[in-house]
């Protein structure tokens, strides 16, 4: 679980799911709910995917349908999250905009679901893996958003403002995570 959170952090070590990572990290107060939403989708969809795999696909011999089935499960989790966010805070739903449904195409989510069904033996392991990945993603997103608030882009060279500087920052964050290489091996 710790390994999923830090050592092989999806955003910063495996560079998965960078789209919301770059897109929604301008402000901490939108990044935090986004991190939570992604974490929620990660956990529910991988559990659902695991359940589908074990209870439905394998008994019926339909393993080859794994990808479409998982994608359906993920889409459902995302839709549910979207409905929930819209119901609880329409304003937040507005602020997150297109990034909320885009969680569905966040490859980190499908990645965790696939890794979970491939490597995990039981439900507890799946939950641990998903929780770890979710916590890692959420922590990285929160830290990154706070960092971006601290950066004063007005003084950076004009060509670097916005996405370029954000990418440099992600790069240095990834460098820090490189330090954990070998840990847990």
């Amino acid at each position: 679980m710790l390994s999923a959170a830090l050592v092989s952090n999806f955003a910063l070590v495996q560079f998965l799911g960078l789209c919301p990572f770059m897109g929604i990290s301008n402000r901490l107060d939108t990044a935090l709910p986004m991190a939570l939403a992604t974490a929620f989708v990660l956990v529910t969809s991988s559990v659902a995917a695991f359940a589908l795999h074990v209870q439905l696909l394998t008994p019926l011999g339909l393993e080859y349908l794994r990808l479409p089935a998982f994608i359906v499960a993920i889409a459902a989790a995302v839709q549910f999250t979207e409905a929930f966010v819209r119901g609880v805070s329409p304003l937040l739903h507005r602020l997150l905009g297109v990034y909320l449904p885009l969680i569905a195409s966040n490859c980190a989510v499908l990645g965790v679901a696939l890794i979970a069904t491939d490597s995990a033996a039981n439900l507890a392991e799946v939950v641990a893996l998903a929780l770890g990945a979710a916590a890692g993603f959420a922590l990285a997103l929160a830290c990154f958003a706070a960092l971006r608030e601290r950066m004063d882009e007005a003084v950076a060279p004009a060509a670097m403002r916005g996405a370029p500087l954000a990418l440099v920052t992600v790069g240095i964050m990834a460098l820090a995570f490189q330090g954990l290489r070998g840990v847990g091996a």
Partner: protein
Amino acid sequence: MTSRGVMLRVGVALVPAAAAATWCFGASVLANLAIAIAAGMALEAAWVWLRHRSLAAATDGSAPVTCALIALAAPPSLALGPLLFAVAVAVLLAKHLYGGLGRNVFNPAMVGYAAALVAYPTPFGDWDALTGATALDAMRFRDGATVAEAWGNDAFGAIGGRGFEIVNAAALLGGVWLCAMRVANWRFPAGVLASLGACAALGYDGGSSGSLGSPLFHWFAGGTMLAAFFIATDPVTAPATPAAQWLFGVLIGAVIFVIRAFGAWPDGIAFAVLFGNLAAPALDRLCLPR
């Protein structure tokens, strides 16, 4: 006191460590220092000149401090290439791309150092032309020997690594002076050393073959004191609220230990400080009252 005065005092506080390193590891330490500082200042001056900024931005004294830290953290036998690479990354990428002094969010010296470490892993492990390995390596890769047995290795001194313990003691001296002058905030080194010590104590069972080294060993091995007193104390990239400052120090100390004990790198200080940096703003937000 001016900002330049601050940098000057940091430089003065580094003198004991630099002198000790020269005495223990040879004159190449001095050569590295001179090359790094000269290159860093030249790069900064060139950047400022090309961007038509006031030359004051290149003479605030922060670049020499950054480059001196890189030179002291790097092995004395380091080739010119990796050293210049580290300096260039530190001054240009980590500092000036973000808008110069006070605007960077990562400690430039450690960005440069870590980047060079990842780009040139081999020469950074090569601290001593004689033994080829540091005490930290010897502690980690000792093939099941107990701590006492491993201590027979040339790499070890009285409490830390041979030479390293003297450099660390000198850095501690300069660092304490820096804290007494109020240039450095004492919470950072206190947090780093307490957390590193606590982690080491948890993993230390008196010296069996599985033991990871005593707190004293970890305090006086590698670049501990340099990181605790000179790098973690860089206020630009550290939190401002007292509670967050403690957490910052504790985080850095813990990551240093994790990398030293379980990681693949010669030492963990650079990565640990970068971890602290990337968490610093979030820690500040966490510790502010709502």
